């Protein structure tokens, strides 16, 4: 026995101490198939070995929470019997290998998670990170990823309503592709991944092929030349089958045919079936001979590890088996009872009449966790500490704005979102580009939801804890400035190797920051995803906690968009005029520096600013509002001119250095417009709330004019707009 071990360990990549633990749990040596079951179930992707203890820091409860982390997606109550399921998920490595299919299957996978909760998907968002836009590889990846998202989302008929894209050199070797989906359900139709004793477990959907063998494990490994050869066979998304599987599953739920639902995602049959049984406190016996296959000659190992797409697990209610089969047949789908639950808490796999694997179900589900020592990368501490007060002032302040608007991180995203169907379903109230968050109305009610996903890589790289706090604050602010009250969030944590002190430090700081911001803003996490080991040979990605916040508008008519709409309205700023240069986009563009500390964030103030703008919108006084983010006040004002081509004249009085005044960044700042009639009540409300504000000027004309204490700057809105629109259009014509 001893001499056969090393090759198997080498082949699976399981570390010796984990192998010893497996032997202890089994009370014997595992066979090859069993060892592979452990390999995938104990992968970082499935088991959260390094993140689980830290995830415990996040608050998970709140008045609106119907389902927190632990299921396929989180669910919040939005009133009138309706609930919303949402989750974000990464598909970074598959997208790096094959951008079109990687992104497409990422979208398909997150949609199935939402469907598994009994919810009809109503919106998709995505969060993308690439290396520098000028690099040919980035362009290839960007085109492919956007194409893949469009291919899947458009065809399956779920609108892609929002997202974010950043370009940063540290993502050059390891791009990030995270997809978020939001679904709508009736509270009473909420489904979980459960089965009762003795029930048949049905496999519904597409056939199983040799797709993405070992993908879950692959997703947890660093990309290197060496494991190029380990490339799994590419998973191909089939939105057509995806659509049929979605409709069949939702109809089965609506007709009361099923008691439990689970999607088959990473680690396919192995993870979906073993986790479902484990959550149900039961065991399960799987008969591989029944599994529908696409190719002849598939081995038990291949069947267990296949990540073929468009497959679901449904557990029929007693007596509804035939109805379920008939329903699936109507959609032309396979529906086969491949397994059944058993009392004995084991995961048993049968093939050709023989037991080919049998392991305690707990052992699979409860991988060891690790708590490590973190240490900050001293180079990052040095960059953060850098004194920026001696930076020269730009010669040509006026010239900075069009350049800033044309940087890859701030330029118009319309060449991307034009390729996504953002209206199918006829619920999209605020289209991409029109507001800081997307708004979707709930048919048959006056309600609507707002969603936005955010994370600033510069902030997170320079100060992981503060950066994570910013990510949540900003996503929530975006939801608030359209008028919605944030209810909860989902988080996609994308980081580097946690086994290095620097990587672990970033992971732990990120979670502590998120936890602190969650508590201060009163926002629980209801779902999320962790993707570690995102690094290439020479770069670790910046910690990237993509935070997707979901909010509620009680009356969809009371909302705000970001564009100036009415001549003569007053432009008001909540918060201070001056911003910080540290970690700003301006600093990178004009000085080539990523340095300094991200702006300080006072969470209590942030919460009050958000409450105030929501209140002004709710009262019907404000219909235009925009948060001041990257690029500072000047960029925010310019963006407000673009929707309708209306300019403004504003005056800034602060004595801070003019570049910090115009382009410095700071949280807790919101610009809004208000007409003469409501100016006084609005400002009075801000005074009563004890918030700093200033009336900056008025909307009008086709130029943006900014008066500074010692200068007058002026731009044609059309000129700014052209600068803003060009860069991505060149890549995505």
């Amino acid at each position, binding site marked *: 026995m001893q001499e056969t071990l090393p090759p198997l360990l080498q082949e699976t990549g399981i570390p010796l101490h984990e192998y010893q633990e497996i032997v202890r749990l089994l009370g014997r040596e595992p066979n090859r198939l069993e060892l592979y079951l452990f390999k995938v179930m104990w992968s970082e992707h499935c088991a959260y070995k390094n993140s689980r203890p830290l995830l415990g820091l996040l608050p998970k409860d709140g008045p609106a929470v119907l389902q927190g982390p632990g299921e396929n997606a989180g669910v919040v109550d939005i009133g009138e019997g309706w609930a919303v399921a949402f989750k974000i998920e990464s598909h970074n490595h598959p997208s790096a290998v094959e951008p079109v299919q990687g992104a497409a299957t990422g979208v398909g996978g997150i949609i199935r998670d939402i469907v598994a909760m009994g919810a009809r998907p109503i919106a998709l968002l995505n969060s993308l990170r690439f290396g520098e836009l000028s690099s040919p590889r980035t362009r290839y990846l960007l085109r492919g990823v956007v*194409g893949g998202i*469009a291919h899947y989302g*458009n*065809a*399956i*008929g779920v609108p892609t309503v929002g997202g974010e894209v950043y370009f940063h050199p540290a993502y050059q070797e390891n791009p990030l592709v995270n997809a978020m989906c939001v679904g709508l359900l009736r509270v009473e139709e909420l489904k979980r991944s459960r089965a009762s004793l003795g029930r048949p477990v049905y496999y519904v959907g597409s056939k199983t092929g040799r797709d993405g063998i070992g993908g879950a494990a692959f997703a947890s490994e660093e990309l290197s030349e060496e494991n190029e050869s380990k490339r799994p066979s590419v998973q191909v998304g*089939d*939105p*057509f089958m995806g*659509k*049929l599987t979605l409709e069949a599953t939702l109809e089965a739920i609506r007709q009361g045919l099923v008691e439990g639902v689970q999607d088959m995602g990473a680690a396919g049959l192995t993870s979906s079936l073993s986790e479902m049984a484990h959550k149900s406190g039961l065991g399960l016996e799987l008969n591989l001979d029944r599994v529908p296959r696409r190719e002849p000659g598939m081995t038990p190992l291949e069947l267990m590890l296949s990540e073929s797409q468009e497959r679901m697990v449904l557990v029929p209610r007693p007596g509804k088996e035939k109805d379920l089969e008939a329903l699936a047949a*109507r*959609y*032309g789908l396979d529906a086969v009872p491949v397994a059944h639950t058993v009392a004995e808490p084991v995961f048993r796999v049968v093939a050709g009449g023989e037991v080919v694997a049998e392991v305690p179900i707990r052992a699979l589900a409860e991988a060891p966790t690790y708590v490590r020592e973190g240490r900050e990368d001293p180079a990052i501490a040095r960059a953060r500490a850098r004194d920026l007060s001696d930076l020269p002032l730009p010669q040509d302040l006026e010239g900075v704005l069009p350049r800033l608007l044309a940087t890859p991180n701030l330029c118009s995203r319309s060449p991307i*979102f*034009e*390729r*996504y*169907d*953002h*209206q*199918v*379903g*006829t619920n*999209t*109230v605020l*289209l991409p580009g029109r507001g800081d968050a997307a708004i979707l*109305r709930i*048919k048959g009610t006056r309600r609507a939801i707002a969603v936005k996903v955010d994370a600033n890589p510069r902030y997170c790289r320079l100060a992981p804890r503060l950066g994570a706090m910013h990510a949540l604050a900003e996503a929530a602010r975006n939801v608030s400035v359209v008028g919605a009250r944030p209810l909860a969030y989902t988080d996609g944590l994308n980081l580097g190797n946690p086994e290095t002190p620097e990587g672990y430090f970033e992971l732990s700081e990120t979670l502590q920051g998120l936890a602190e911001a969650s508590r201060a803003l009163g926002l629980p996490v209801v779902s999320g995803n962790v993707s570690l080991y995102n690094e290439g040979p020479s770069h670790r990605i910046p910690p990237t906690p993509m935070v997707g916040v979901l909010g509620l508008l009680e009356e*969809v*008519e009371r909302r705000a968009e970001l564009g100036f709409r009415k001549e003569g309205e007053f432009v008001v700023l909540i918060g201070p005029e001056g911003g910080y240069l540290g970690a700003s986009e301006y600093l990178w563009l004009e000085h080539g520096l990523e340095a300094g500390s991200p702006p300080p964030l006072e969470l209590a103030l942030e919460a009050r600013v958000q409450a105030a703008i929501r209140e002004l919108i709710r009262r019907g006084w404000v219909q235009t509002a925009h948060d001041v983010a990257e690029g500072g006040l000047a960029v925010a004002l310019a963006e407000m001119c673009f929707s309708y081509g209306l300019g403004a004249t504003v005056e800034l009085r602060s004595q801070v250095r003019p570049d910090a005044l115009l382009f410095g960044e700071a949280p807790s700042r919101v610009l809004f417009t208000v007409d003469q009639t409501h100016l006084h009540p609005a400002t009075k409300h801000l005074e009563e709330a004890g918030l700093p504000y200033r009336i900056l000027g008025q909307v009008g004309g086709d130029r943006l004019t900014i008066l500074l204490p010692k200068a007058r700057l002026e731009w044609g809105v059309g000129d700014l707009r052209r600068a803003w629109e060009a860069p991505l259009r060149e890549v995505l*014509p």
Partner: protein
Amino acid sequence: MRVAVVQFPGSNCDQDALWALRLVGLRAELVWHTEGSLEGFQAAVLPGGFSYGDYLRAGALAKFSPVMQEVRRLALRGYPVVGICNGFQVLTEAGLLPGALLANTNLHFTCKEVYLRVERTDLPFTSAYAQGQVLRLPIAHAEGRYYADEETLERLEQNRQVVFRYAPAPHAAGGPDHNPNGSLHDIAGIVNEGGNVLGMMPHPERAVEEVLGGTDGLGLFWSLKAALEVLPA
């Protein structure tokens, strides 16, 4: 008056069409593509989406669905049939409308607002519009470039079968950019010779409520309703 909204596998604007039809008070029902009869329906809508995944060619595989026989029968008897986006592609593939819809010249799916001019108001689909009225409607397609040979195009023009044409935004400077897909003669929608089968690429059902950003699509549904009210049941 009952309107059938045909669901092909992969249709995804079926619910949206249903919603818009019901909004103007029409009795609309979903009909699965395997249905062998449209008895009792006075109109059919072929909605947008990706029937059969749009594999091979948009609309190419849906034309074989059993329900298409019935759609053809309804059309032959003079009842209104509307194909929106993918529905338009299915109608051309099935030969119920002339021409074909090819890949957009920009080679990618495009979702945005466009303007179109109403060329004819004496139809069951356009009576609520004014002649020459310019509508603002969303498009969302990858294969919308209308193509027909010279002869067919000429016949379409002579018979006034072009119902909607892409046009510049009102008050805009104009230019060639108003045509989003390269369709010949700026065609956005056509009818058959009988004037009872309409195919159009833009999505009127996406512009039926203020909250969605526009109501220019409503006219089509009101027109249909008015037309159905005077039809023999």
